[in-house]
């Protein structure tokens, strides 16, 4: 049986066309894009073409608004550190409780070491941002507000275009970690007030170790990696050309598959959710089901623990992930589920299935077949399970 890979929010398979596009840049086109000779010129042209491909995917007005980096984490760090450096009189930042650690651990570090005031905006039970709290935190003291476009665990989408307008009104920059959104939903940055956006290659069938930071023209940018004049002096270091070419190709392919992502892939996800909810009692979908990525399903099963689910799924040839404590080495459920106040009875048993264009109808069939007996087996073992007697009284506030 074909293994079923449903952990595409963790990483995706590199598209074979991307690999093919990259290969010459390890071999014949090994030149340094900054060199004056033919070797360099050839590569320089290819890097520019890749920049344009990425520009197209995110709807940037100019290709030079794209700065290649090593990935999402570097882009996130660069955006926030640059904003603080460019506006030293502003000493506060705003972010949400459900951001990626690339933002949250940087924010905690800045709070501790640089006396930066960090506003962490809470979310509700469906993972939606507390808009009032966000507005209340905005002030002329804020250097940058950074709110993710889509949450990696639940797929919940944030109204970043509106949030960016609100930030602009107080003169604060707006950054969004769009690592999960780019390639999955249409993005048109030139029509928004978003100043900076982070993206990562390996989440859209590109290679690992490459990403980009979009910096809107006119935004004051302070480079964090000092070195040569690469990327118009905004990111020192010889260009990772194979990675850049791969990211460019991946962006082009993502654009071509955008409709498929929002129709076929979405219908796979929806069919999986429906199938599981019908077959497994005491189960609910977490996140904002009305505003969600088309590929992400986070399903919480009461009275059982996520690592046990993953081990059994793995044995059935299915790869998924979990917000449970035990899978991460931490002892508490994920910060996202805790921020949403998902009760402990279910947070430990939350499982995430994330699709990509590689997935098929058979994949969904396989999970719908494998998952119910796995849940039944673990509930059989669980001292908290009452044999489904409680099903009738089960009224999760998120459903």
């Amino acid at each position, binding site marked *: 049986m074909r293994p079923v890979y449903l952990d595409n929010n963790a990483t995706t398979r590199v598209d074979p066309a991307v690999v093919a596009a990259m290969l010459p840049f390890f071999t014949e086109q090994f030149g340094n894009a900054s060199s004056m000779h033919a070797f360099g010129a050839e590569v320089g042209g290819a890097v520019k073409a890749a920049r344009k491909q990425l520009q197209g995917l995110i709807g940037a007005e100019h290709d030079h608004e794209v700065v290649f980096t090593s990935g999402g984490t570097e882009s996130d760090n660069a955006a926030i550190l640059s904003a603080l450096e460019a506006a030293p009189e502003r000493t506060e930042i705003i972010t949400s409780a459900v951001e990626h650690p690339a933002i949250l651990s940087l924010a905690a570090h800045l709070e501790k070491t640089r006396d930066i005031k960090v506003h962490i905006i809470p979310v509700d039970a469906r993972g939606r941002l507390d808009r009032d709290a966000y507005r209340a935190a905005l002030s002329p003291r804020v250097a940058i507000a950074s709110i993710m476009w889509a949450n990696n665990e639940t797929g919940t989408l944030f109204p970043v275009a509106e949030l960016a307008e609100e930030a602009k009104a107080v003169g604060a920059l707006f950054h969004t970690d769009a690592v999960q959104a780019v390639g999955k939903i249409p993005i048109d940055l030139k029509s928004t007030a978003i100043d900076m956006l982070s993206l990562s290659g390996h989440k859209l069938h590109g290679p690992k170790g490459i990403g980009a930071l979009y910096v809107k023209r006119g935004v004051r940018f302070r480079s964090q990696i000092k070195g040569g004049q690469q990327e118009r002096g905004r990111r020192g270091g010889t260009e990772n050309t194979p990675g850049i070419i791969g990211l460019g190709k991946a962006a082009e392919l993502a654009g071509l598959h955008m409709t498929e992502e929002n129709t076929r892939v979405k219908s796979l996800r929806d069919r999986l959710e429906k199938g599981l909810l019908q077959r497994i009692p005491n189960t609910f979908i977490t996140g904002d089901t009305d505003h969600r990525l088309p590929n992400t399903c986070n399903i919480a099963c009461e009275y059982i623990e996520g690592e046990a689910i993953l081990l059994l799924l793995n044995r059935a040839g299915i790869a998924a992930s979990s917000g449970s404590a035990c899978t991460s080495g931490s*002892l508490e459920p994920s910060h996202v589920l805790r921020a949403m106040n998902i009760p402990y009875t279910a947070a430990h048993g939350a499982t995430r299935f994330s699709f990509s264009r590689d997935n098929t109808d058979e994949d969904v069939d396989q999970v719908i077949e494998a998952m119910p007996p796995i849940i039944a087996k673990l509930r059989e073992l669980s001292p908290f399970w009452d044999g489904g007697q409680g099903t009738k009284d089960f009224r999760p506030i998120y459903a």
Partner: protein
Amino acid sequence: MLVREIVQLSRQAFTAIYVIPEITHQAEDFAMWDYTDKVKDYFFNPKNAGVLAGANAVGEVGAISCGDALKLMLQVNPTTEVIEDARFQTFGCGSAIASSSALTEIVIGKTISQALAITNQDIADFLGGLPPEKMHCSVMGYEALQAAVASYRGEEWHDDHDEGALICKCFGVDEGVIERAVRVNKLTTPEQVTFYTKAGGGCLTCFEGIEQVLSKVNAAMVEEGLITAEAAYQIGSIDPRALKSKAKPSELRKPRIDVEQLMATKPTAAPLVSPLAPVKTTPKLTTLQKIKAIEAAIEDLRPFLKADGGDCQLIDVEGDLVQVKLSGACIGCQMASVTISGVREKLIEKLGIPLRVVPV
């Protein structure tokens, strides 16, 4: 001209060697944790799971909020005090379920007083070891057994609060639980206390509390000659912030057997090593003793290698360098390096000294 030549040459070279690999997948080969085969077996096929109708001793520990909970049910013969049957129900991860199941296997046939002598280490040993971060699963089994025996005797099992102050509020861990875990497992760092009891696994505001209990118990253990003064924990020797930032998922995936920790906390059961040997120094073995011990360890491993169509022979021992020869199906197998590290782990476990294993 030159560029074009290079281009053509390298393109040829590439078409020759580059093949986009098929996704391959061996379902049970990878695991989120480095669980032993026995842990996996007891998780995938748990023995004695479910409700025991005639139970006259029941121990319940843990809570759903903590991420694991265990209900242990025993049927004790009132005349002989022999545990005739045992069942469990567990909410928790793979190793929690495996530890619970292992516990039932261990206690069946034992008398109540024999059962009381079982430690969490016995449960972990029965399973061929647990990842350090998962030792709390074995402690949960120990606690449930104590609670079940207490219920049989009509006593109240004090699993929290009454046994000294509550130290960790996130996971409801009191001083008594920490003290027991430190004593039984010879723990000497706050991080180990978290792995074994979960205390400090949440907000970590109880770090000072953990430090105090740990250093107090360690000091007593030094007095009793259980650990050396050098190994005992000193308050303030670890910055809790380092501990917190260390709790990153990727970094927690340490090898199942950590030589340092093995040396520090678990004087090996191997008869060649005196339990009273200073913990941080390498026990002195003559080369002959070493060779004999290594050969015995390889002998233990052989059935597993044979099961996969392979074999392993000891070639030479020089200091801490052990040369082995893999044969049969191990040859050319991509898993050979995994096998080698498995052999190394086993040898270290058996001998209790750091070793390097290289194939020849």
